[in-house]
C-alpha cells in the first residue's frame, strides 16, 4: 500500500537555456501539509505548473496515489483530484461567487440545474470547512481574503483531494493568513493533502508537516518540519550563509529633506489605500518602510514621486511645500531633487524594447545636457550611458543593446545608475533587489549606503523585512494604509512581525482584520 498522494520522479523542464527543474524527486504523504520552499526563481512555480498541467515536463514521471498519471492539461489535473489556488486569483471579477465556482464544472449544458446543485453543495462545503461566503456576491466587491476562499471552494467543488497553494499569504493581511491556516488545518483533518509553496520560513514552521527545499531548479532536501529549524532551512535555501548584514557605519542624520504630512491616497477604484500618513526623512539617513505587500506602500511611493495624486495632505521637499492633490508630476519632483527607483522595473522603470542608452535617460530626457533644441543629443546620451555602464558594471557593456536582453540584475543596475547619477537630494527606492541575483544585490545595497553616507535622504520601501532591517536606520511599519509604528532596525523580527500584522505593542486586538 502506497502512502503517497503525489510522487514525482526525475522531473526535468527547460525553457530555452534556462533549466528550471532538474531531476526533481518529491514525495508527498497523504493527509499532510507539505511545504515547498525556495527563493524567487528556484523553480517551485514551474514544478507546480507541471503538476497542474500548465506546462509539460521534458522528462520524468508523475504518480498520483501510486498510479502513473499523464497530466496533459488542467482538465487532467482536475480529474486526478488536484486543485490549485494560484498566486494571482483566477476569478472572473464581474461574475458572482457562484458563477465562478461552477465555471468549468457546470454539470450540464444548461445552467439551471447546475446552479441549484452548486448552491446546496456550496452550503455543505462552507459548513464543513468553515469557508463562509455569500454565493451571490460579485467577486470584485468582496475582500481579497474572501476571493481566496472562493478559490479554495472551487477546488473542493471539483472534488480535489490534493490542494496546491502558491504563495497564498502574499496578498493577505496577517489576520487573513491566520484564518487561512486554520482552514488548511481543517482540510488536513478531513483527509486532504496540501502542498504549500512559499518563501516564508515562518509559515513553513507554523503549519507544515514536511518541507522540501528547492534551490536553482533542484530539490536539495526534504525534512520533517518538527526535526528541522529555521536556520537549517534558510541555509538549504540559499546554499551558503549569505550574511545579509550590510557593512555600514552609524547614520549621521542632518536636516529634514522630505516631509510627508497627513497624506491620503485612493486607488483607481476609489478605495483608500494610504490613510493619514506622516513621516520625515533626514539627509544622511535611510528610512525603511516595512509591511506586507498591498498595504499601501506602492500607492504611497507613487504619490510621493508625483505619479499618482493624493486625495489630501501635502509633501514638503527641501522646505518647499508641494501640492500633491493635483499639481505635482514626476518631472517636477525630479527637478526638485528627487530620484525614484520604482518597484516594477519591467513596466515602469524601463522601456524594455528600448536600447540601453535610451533607457539611461528615461524621465530625465528633457534635461539640457541630453538635448539640442528640440532634438536629442544622441552623442552625449551614448557617452553618458557608457560612463554609467562602466561605473555600475552593467553587462554586457553595449549601450545599443535592447534592454530586454539584459539580465534582471543588470536591468536593475541600469535603473539604479540612472537615478543615482542624477545626484538627487532624496532617493525613493522600491523593492531594489526583487528578482536580482546575489552579486547584484550586494552591489545595489552598497550603492544605497554610499548615497546615505554622501548625505542624501533615502526612503526605502521593501516587502523583504531582512533587506529593510539591514539597510535602514529607522524602520516604519505600514499596515492597512497607516504607519502603525516606528522601530530601530535592531528590533527583533518577531516584534516587526506583530506590527506588520497590525498588532501594536501590548495591544493584542487585531486591527481591521478583514481589510482587503
Amino acid at each position, binding site marked *: 500500500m502506497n502512502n503517497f498522494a503525489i510522487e514525482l520522479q526525475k522531473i526535468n523542464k527547460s525553457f*530555452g537555456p*534556462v533549466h528550471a527543474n532538474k531531476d526533481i524527486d518529491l514525495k508527498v504523504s497523504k493527509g499532510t501539509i507539505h511545504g515547498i520552499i525556495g527563493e524567487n526563481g528556484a523553480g517551485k512555480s514551474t514544478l507546480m505548473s507541471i503538476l497542474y498541467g500548465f506546462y509539460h515536463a521534458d522528462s520524468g514521471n508523475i504518480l498520483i496515489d501510486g498510479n502513473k498519471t499523464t497530466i496533459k492539461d488542467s482538465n487532467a489535473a482536475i480529474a486526478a483530484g488536484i486543485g490549485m489556488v494560484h498566486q494571482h486569483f483566477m476569478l472572473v471579477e464581474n461574475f458572482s461567487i457562484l458563477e465562478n465556482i461552477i465555471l468549468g464544472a457546470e454539470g450540464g449544458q444548461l445552467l439551471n440545474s447546475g446552479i441549484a446543485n452548486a448552491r446546496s453543495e456550496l452550503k455543505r462545503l462552507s459548513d464543513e470547512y468553515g469557508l463562509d461566503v455569500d454565493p451571490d456576491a460579485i467577486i470584485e466587491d468582496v475582500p481579497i481574503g474572501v476571493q481566496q476562499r472562493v478559490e479554495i471552494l472551487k477546488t473542493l467543488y471539483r472534488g480535489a483531494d490534493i490542494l496546491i497553494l502558491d504563495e497564498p499569504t502574499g496578498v493577505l493581511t496577517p489576520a487573513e493568513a491566520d484564518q487561512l491556516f486554520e482552514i488548511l488545518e481543517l482540510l488536513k483533518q478531513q483527509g486532504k493533502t496540501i502542498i504549500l509553496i512559499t518563501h516564508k520560513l515562518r509559515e513553513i514552521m507554523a503549519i507544515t508537516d514536511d518541507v522540501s527545499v528547492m534551490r536553482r531548479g533542484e530539490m536539495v532536501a526534504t525534512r520533517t518540519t518538527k526535526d528541522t529549524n529555521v536556520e537549517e532551512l534558510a541555509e538549504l535555501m540559499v546554499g551558503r550563509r549569505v550574511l545579509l548584514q550590510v557593512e555600514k557605519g552609524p547614520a549621521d542624520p542632518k536636516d529634514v529633506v522630505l516631509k510627508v504630512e497627513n497624506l491620503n491616497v485612493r486607488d483607481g477604484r476609489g478605495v483608500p489605500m494610504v490613510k493619514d500618513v506622516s513621516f520625515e526623512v533626514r539627509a544622511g539617513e535611510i528610512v525603511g518602510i516595512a509591511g506586507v505587500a498591498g498595504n499601501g506602500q506602492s500607492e504611497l511611493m507613487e504619490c510621493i514621486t508625483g*505619479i499618482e495624486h493624493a486625495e489630501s495632505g501635502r509633501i514638503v521637499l527641501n522646505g518647499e511645500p508641494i501640492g500633491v492633490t493635483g499639481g505635482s508630476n514626476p518631472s517636477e519632483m525630479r527637478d526638485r531633487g528627487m530620484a525614484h527607483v520604482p518597484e516594477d522595473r519591467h513596466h515602469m522603470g524601463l522601456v524594455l524594447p528600448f536600447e540601453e542608452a535610451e533607457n539611461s535617460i528615461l*524621465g530625465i530626457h528633457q534635461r539640457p545636457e541630453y538635448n539640442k533644441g528640440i532634438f536629442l543629443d544622441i552623442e552625449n546620451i551614448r557617452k553618458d550611458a557608457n560612463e554609467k555602464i562602466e561605473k555600475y558594471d552593467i553587462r554586457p557593456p553595449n549601450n545599443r*543593446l535592447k534592454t530586454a536582453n539584459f*539580465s534582471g540584475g543588470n536591468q536593475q543596475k541600469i535603473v539604479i545608475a540612472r537615478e543615482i547619477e542624477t545626484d538627487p537630494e532624496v532617493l525613493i527606492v522600491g523593492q531594489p533587489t526583487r528578482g536580482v541575483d546575489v552579486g547584484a544585490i550586494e552591489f545595489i545595497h552598497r550603492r544605497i549606503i554610499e548615497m546615505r553616507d554622501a548625505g542624501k535622504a533615502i526612503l526605502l520601501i521593501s516587502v523583504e523585512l531582512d533587506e529593510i532591517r539591514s539597510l535602514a536606520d529607522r524602520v516604519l511599519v505600514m499596515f492597512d494604509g497607516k504607519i502603525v509604528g516606528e522601530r530601530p532596525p535592531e528590533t527583533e523580527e518577531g516584534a516587526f512581525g506583530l506590527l506588520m500584522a497590525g498588532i501594536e505593542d501590548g495591544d493584542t486586538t487585531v486591527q481591521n482584520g478583514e481589510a482587503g
Partner: protein
Amino acid sequence: MAAPYAKLPKWVDYGLMPVINILVAFLISGLVVWLADESPLKAAGLLIKGAFGYGEGIGYTLFYATSFIFTGLSVAIAIHCGLFNIGSEGQAYIGGIGVALACLAFDSTLPWFLVFPIAIVGAAIFGALWAFIPAYLQAKRGSHIVITTIMFNFIAASLMIYLLVDVFKPDGTMAPQTRGFAEGGQLPRLDWLFGIFGIRTGAAPLNISFILALVAAFVVWLIVWRTRLGYEIRTRGFSPTAAKYAGINEARVIIITMMISGGLAGMMALNPIMGDQHQMQLDFVAGAGFVGIAVALMGRNHPAGIIPAAILFGVLYQGGAEISFEMPNISRDMIVIIQGLVILFAGALENMFRPFIVMIFANLQKSSSSNAIEAGE
C-alpha cells in the same frame, strides 16, 4: 521567461521576414487571378510593364505613391505612440477643405509657389483638427481610438458630401465639386525633373507634392528617432506606465501625435486636388487612407520602409489599371484584395512564418548557440 522568439539577425527581422510575408500575399493574389480565369503570370507581366515599362507609367506609379507615402506616414507615426489610427482616410478627406480654401481664395491672385505653402498649412490644419477630436476623447475620456476614428471616417464622408453639394458647388453646375482652380492653384509637374534622366512622364500628374512627401518622410524620421517628442511618443507607445513614470504628459503626447498623424493624412489631399484634378471632387481620397495602413505595416512603420511600400502600391494602382485594360475580369478592385492580403500577412499574421525561419537559422547557427543572452529571471 521562455523567450518566445529567438533572436534573429537584424537583416532577417527587418528584411527577409517582411519580404516573405509580402510574397505570400502576392501568391494568394495570384490565386485569385487564377480563380478569375486569368493567368497570374501574365497579369504580373502586365503589372510590371504598366508600372515601369514606359515613362508615363512611372509617372503615374509615383503619383499614386505620393498619396500613399503621406497616409502611410500618418498611420505609422500613430502606431509609434501605440495608437491605431484608422481615420487617415477621413483626415485626408477633411484635409482637402484646407487645400480647396487656399486655392479658391488665392488661385487667381498669387502664383502657385505662394499658394502651395498656404495649402500645405491648410491641409495639415484641417487634417489635424479632424484627428484632434478622437485624440482628445482617447486622451481625456479613454474612448477607444480605433472605433472613434472609424466613426469619424463616416462622419467625414457625410460632411464632405454636404459641403460639396451645398457649399462648394458653384451655382448652376451639377457635379458635386468645387470650381476648377486657376493657375495659382495648380502644382507644377515633375516631367522636367524626370526628363533629365531621359524618362518622359507624359500626361502623368506626378507633381511637386511627391518631393514634399519625401521631405515629410525625412521629417517623420527626425521626429520619431531624433527629437525629444519622438522619444516621448515611442516611450508611450511601448509602455504607458513607463511614460507616466518618466513624467511624460500622456494626454499631450497622444493629442500631438494624432494631430501630426492627421496633418500628414491631410497633406495627402494636395496631391490629387492641387496636383491633378485642380478642383476638389467627391471622394478624391479614393481609399488612399486605408492603403496607408497596408503601407505602414509593410514598411514596418519606418520611413525607409514606407517609401518603397508606397511605391509598391503605386505600382499596383498603375499596373492594375494596365491589367484591367487587357483583362476585363481583373478590375482595379484586385488592388483592394492585395491590400487586404498585405495587411493580413504583414500585419495580423506577421509572425506566422517566424518559427520556420527561426528553425532554419537555429540549424544554420548551431555552433554558435551559446552566445544567447538570457533575458528572463
